[in-house]
């Protein structure tokens, strides 16, 4: 169970004159739920975009499933894209397609399965993420924020990916919805053997579902490991993170 799925070493990212990452290194193991933490502007989302080949770092190495993303060829890149699912922060559903079409789009494009079966799979995924069946025929513009998140998760899960990227999955959800979302991700991980990488601010998520995480700050990874390991880290940013009111309440309540 300790296969490394994602390995990042010495990544340097620069936007113009602005240095975002200066030697970021971390690794994600198979079957774990890995969190990326950090304040606003610490480059979490940028790092996530580099994992999914939307951005290219200026230097360093990122490998996913053993493939080095900086020198990957077209067909290997296509293979990789089949193996992961991505949930964007704002959902990024295609606004001209219904929820059902959105969820089924990769199934329809990349497989030769019969239409009926695709419909079955799509309806099941929609049900699985907790959307009512009536939502299937709605357009994204007709959905609430939480429903968009769920529909986007269903779309990310449509092809049974081995690796799931979540960009702030619980932001914008009510506490009940956020907890249900967390539980769903846990359940899916256990049954489908997913590896999950999530960018999150949600302290509750870190306590309840994240196995290991990295704290980004000062353009580097300042702490990596399980919750207990990270909390022993004396770095001021880590202290700030867990020392605030929310963090203290959370610590008092325990798991």
């Amino acid at each position, binding site marked *: 169970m300790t296969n490394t799925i994602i390995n990042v070493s010495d990544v340097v990212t620069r936007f113009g004159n602005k240095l975002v990452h200066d030697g970021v290194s971390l690794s994600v193991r198979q079957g774990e739920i890995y969190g990326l933490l950090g304040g606003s502007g610490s480059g979490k989302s940028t790092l996530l975009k580099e994992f999914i080949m939307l951005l290219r770092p200026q230097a360093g190495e990122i490998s996913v*499933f*053993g493939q080095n993303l900086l020198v990957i060829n077209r067909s290997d890149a296509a*293979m990789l894209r*089949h*193996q992961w699912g991505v949930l964007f922060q704002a959902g990024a559903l295609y*606004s*001209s397609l219904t929820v059902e079409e959105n969820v089924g789009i990769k*199934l329809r494009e990349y*497989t*030769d*399965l*019969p239409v*009926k*079966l695709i419909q*079955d*799979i799509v*309806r*099941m*995924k929609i*049900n*699985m993420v907790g959307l009512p*069946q009536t939502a299937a025929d709605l*357009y*994204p*513009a007709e959905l609430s924020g939480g429903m968009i998140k769920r529909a986007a998760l269903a779309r990310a899960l449509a*092809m*049974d990916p081995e690796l799931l990227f979540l960009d702030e999955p619980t932001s914008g959800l009510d506490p009940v919805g956020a907890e249900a979302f967390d539980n769903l991700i846990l*359940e899916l991980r256990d*049954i*489908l053997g997913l590896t999950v990488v999530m960018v999150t601010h949600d302290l509750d998520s870190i306590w309840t579902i994240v196995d290991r995480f990295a704290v980004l700050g000062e353009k580097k990874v300042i702490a990596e490991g399980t919750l207990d390991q990270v909390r022993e880290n004396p770095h001021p940013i880590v202290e700030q993170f867990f020392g605030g009111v929310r963090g203290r309440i959370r610590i008092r309540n325990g798991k």
Partner: protein
Amino acid sequence: MQSTHSQMARLQWLKNTEGEIILKSSGDWTINTLQDASGILEQYSGASHNLSVQWDVSDVGRIDSAGMMLFIHHYDVLTSNHCTIKITGAKRDHERMYRLLRKYAVQHSMEKPALFSPLLTPLYDIGENSVSFIKDITAFLAFIGENFVNLLYSLRHPRSIRFGAIVKNIEEAGVRAIPIVALTSFLIGVVIAYQGAVQLEKFGANIFIVDMIGLSITRELAPLITAIVVAGRTGSSYTAQLGVMKLTEEIDAMRTMGFDPHCFLVLPRIISLMIALPLMIFFADIIGIAAGMLISHLHLHVSYAEFMLRLQSALELKHVWIGIAKGPFFAWLIAAVSCFHGFQVSKSTESIGRYTTISVVNAIFLVIACDALFSVLLTELGI
């Protein structure tokens, strides 16, 4: 990577001597390997009634939710056909997956009966389109009404007029459009002069090129061409700007702060275009006539001085004024239509594109229709 070594899902459908069905599945039942197995199941499962089925799944390798859904679907089909099914050899993780997906699988409901026969759809479409057309017209009238109310209010309270926005819009829609207006009107002048020159040369009536260019450019072509360029350029940008503001809820934010979007967004645009377009038409007049003068000189050997002299006697001032007077009318049509469509944008990116297209097409059509109306009206009035 694992998926490169996956085997196709296989299924054997056998009948033993006692009339029982023996199903034997093997291989990987994953999303990319299911075609064969799903074909076989599709073929047989619906046609089997009142049978006893033994389904051996012990040789199945990996299975994902697509494979499991295929299994669940046909399991349900067989059950509803009163077959008794016995599953043998299921692995533990397969069972867990089955339980998870079974929880979420949707029971098949009967197909909904079609509400309309295909023959009726044209009628249905006609009805739907007519209703939406009438709705659009009423909405547009309401928009114009609201706009006039705001205009009257602004006239009574001149301090509420957004002069800054008007000036900025004049720069955006007028000053920045000068190069393209100059280019098109220059080309139109060239075209008219060339076409006229060939005909007039036959009669030796070279000097009448001046009448022709002077009259056609100032009275008809400069206003029309300028308005069409502006409809394409400014009309589309108005629709897209307001559409995006609607999409990002900026317009709602304005309303909640008590900024009336008509006052802040629509009126400045309409007023500035009504100021800019006549000026642009005048500019287009000059460029168009200059182009005609150049071609007359090169092609018909009418000297510049001769051309000018003839122009003064041939071109009555009223034609220039009529051309320029069309400007505010065209401008109002373009700005009102494009702002109206901007507000119609709904919460999807696709609708911005659709309404921008509609707004440009409508604006150009209305400009041409309005021009035709002017032609008929003024000719009948003898002006």
